[in-house]
């Protein structure tokens, strides 16, 4: 952590320097780098503007006005009397470090409207900034979880998913391992990796929701956001459910913050009332108003698909592929996937191939787009593009979520079109697949693999082309402003 501080006191011969020394000691002890400007009688040596620019947070320990405060505008600030700097330097440093750690949230930047560089953001840009806050905190979970699952497939074979969670693979039925502490003994290191990766993945949506709400309403947003995200997982609402949960939670906390409590009440407001009301209201909304309709829609979709028997195979592939690409592990995706697994069990192997091709395409196509037109993507998106290659190759559609959650209106159409193309082409070639997952790792189990690969290429190309066209044609100034700001704060 890089810190800068200004110390000053009325006479400028004693406390100014004691505070400087104490802050330097405390920062050193805590492992931070600090530069202190002593605005005292020995003449202030101004901080190098480059040092200020690089600082993660600012500390003022001053009894008199800090000179040229503007230099620090927009940085997380801890401010106190000079004696606090002397007596409680460690606290001030810890507080500054905590504020700096929070700072990736654009809330910190937004909370400092005085910042001369930050243009005022319109509602569209704000929304994008909130979404990108959630995505940026979610990314490590995607990378860790996705790569662990991919490695588990490589080490343990594609059946590792069924060894751990139970189910049938290639005609062998596995019992789920109920006691996770037995995983290493019964499923080996691959089983352990699959389990850990799965747990990391299960946090995708709660973290996304929690930090969207955090972006909107600061730390009070985290609890209702995470709980709303957990409910999105529980009701199978997928990442779109998580986005909804985050926005709902953030909006509720923002509204609650507007309630002006009197002095005596304000403490209990922050500690009890806001968390209680926001968590319940978000949870209720997600469970009752969103969860139930989603479950009904899923049941209807499942029945509808079952009634489609006899429809043209290519059309069915197109439809299932579009569903796979729509919400990347969400409710619609799940209906299509389970339809494929069901067909697999009843002996129709073409549908599973189409479904897997369509599920691999979204991360692959978007990864391709970050390479073809890097300037259309933010820095974090370009980074997640690298992991997306691997996740796509292993049929982990969630690799596309960071893109879709940050910019749903342009990315989801792209993944839908790419998925539809892949599904249709795979069906047209009559490719088959005997496994319910695994990606490139189950290529030996694919009938007519050439056709399957063509389907992947066609789908990835379609997703990439569509994303590039949409992001180019419809790149609003607001989004650019949000991206600029996000670059600074993430």
């Amino acid at each position, binding site marked *: 952590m890089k810190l800068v501080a200004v110390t000053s006191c009325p*006479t400028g*011969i*004693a406390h100014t*320097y004691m505070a400087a*020394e104490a802050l330097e*000691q405390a920062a050193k002890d805590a492992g931070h780098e600090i530069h202190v400007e002593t605005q005292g*009688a020995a*003449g202030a040596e101004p901080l190098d503007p480059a040092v200020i620019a690089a600082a993660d947070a600012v500390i003022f320990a001053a009894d008199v006005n800090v000179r040229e405060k503007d230099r620090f505008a927009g940085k997380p600030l801890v401010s106190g009397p000079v004696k606090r700097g002397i*007596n409680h330097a460690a606290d001030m440093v810890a507080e500054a470090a905590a504020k700096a750690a929070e700072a990736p949230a654009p809330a910190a930047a937004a909370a400092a409207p005085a910042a001369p560089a930050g243009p005022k953001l319109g509602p569209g840009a704000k929304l994008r900034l909130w979404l990108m806050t959630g995505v940026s905190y979610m990314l490590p979970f995607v990378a860790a979880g996705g790569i662990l699952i991919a490695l588990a497939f490589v080490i343990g074979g594609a059946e590792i998913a069924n060894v751990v969670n139970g189910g049938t693979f290639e005609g062998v039925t596995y019992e789920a391992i109920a006691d996770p502490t037995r995983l290493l003994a019964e499923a080996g290191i691959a089983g352990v990796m699959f389990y850990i990766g799965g747990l990391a993945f299960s946090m995708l949506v709660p973290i996304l929701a929690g930090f969207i709400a955090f972006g909107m309403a600061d730390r009070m947003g985290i609890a209702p956001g995470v709980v709303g995200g957990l409910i999105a997982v529980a009701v199978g609402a997928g990442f779109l459910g998580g986005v909804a949960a985050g926005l709902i939670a953030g909006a509720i906390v923002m509204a609650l913050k507007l309630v002006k409590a009197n002095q005596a009440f304000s403490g209990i407001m922050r500690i009890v009332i806001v968390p209680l009301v926001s968590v319940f209201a978000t949870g209720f909304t997600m469970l009752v108003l969103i969860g139930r309709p989603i479950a009904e829609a899923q049941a209807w979709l499942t029945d509808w698909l079952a009634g489609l028997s006899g429809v043209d195979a290519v059309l069915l592939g197109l439809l299932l592929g579009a569903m796979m690409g729509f919400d990347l592990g969400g409710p619609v995706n799940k209906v299509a996937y389970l339809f494929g697994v069901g067909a697999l069990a009843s002996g129709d192997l073409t549908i599973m191939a189409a479904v897997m091709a369509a599920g691999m395409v979204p991360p692959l196509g978007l990864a391709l787009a970050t390479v073809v037109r890097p300037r259309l993507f933010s820095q974090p998106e370009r980074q997640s593009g690298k992991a997306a290659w691997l996740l796509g190759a292993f049929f982990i559609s969630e690799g596309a979520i960071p893109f879709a959650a940050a910019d749903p209106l342009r990315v989801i159409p792209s993944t839908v079109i790419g998925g539809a193309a892949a599904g249709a082409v795979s069906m047209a070639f009559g490719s088959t697949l005997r496994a319910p997952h695994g990606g490139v790792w189950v290529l030996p189990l694919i009938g007519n693999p050439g056709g399957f690969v063509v389907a992947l290429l066609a789908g990835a190309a379609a997703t990439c082309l569509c994303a590039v066209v949409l992001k180019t044609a419809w790149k609003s100034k607001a989004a650019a402003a949000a991206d600029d700001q996000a670059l600074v704060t993430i």
Partner: protein
Amino acid sequence: MSDLITADLVDLDLTGADRHAATAALAARLAAAGRVTDTEGFLADVRAREEQMPTGIEGGIGIPHARSAHVTAPSLAFGRSAAGVDFGADDGPADLVFLIAAPAGGGSDHMTILASLARKLVHQDFKAALRDAPDAAAAAALINSALA
């Protein structure tokens, strides 16, 4: 430039009913050494600073100080009080009292020395050494060597 402090400016048995008495006792030493020309005038300047904000620091330190026209050379008088003198710190009286006298028009060289003294006061081992100093000469040497 003369040393910031000499043995004459150290009082290891500082007494005084309150911070003003203790400060006055130390100021008298500065005056006797010719470093302060007008004791009353200097004390008034110190009191003015003290009234803005007490100069006591947690950990048993009091640092009354002033930049004053009545000071001829940047100086320090150091007193050690067994009973402690209240300098308004949150955690109780100070047993180490540093009276810092800075000339009003002092160049920044002087101020730099005082600044490094102030920085030293934050260090536990420096304070501990002062508490253990056997006599005035040792305390003065300790302080001067710390600033060398």
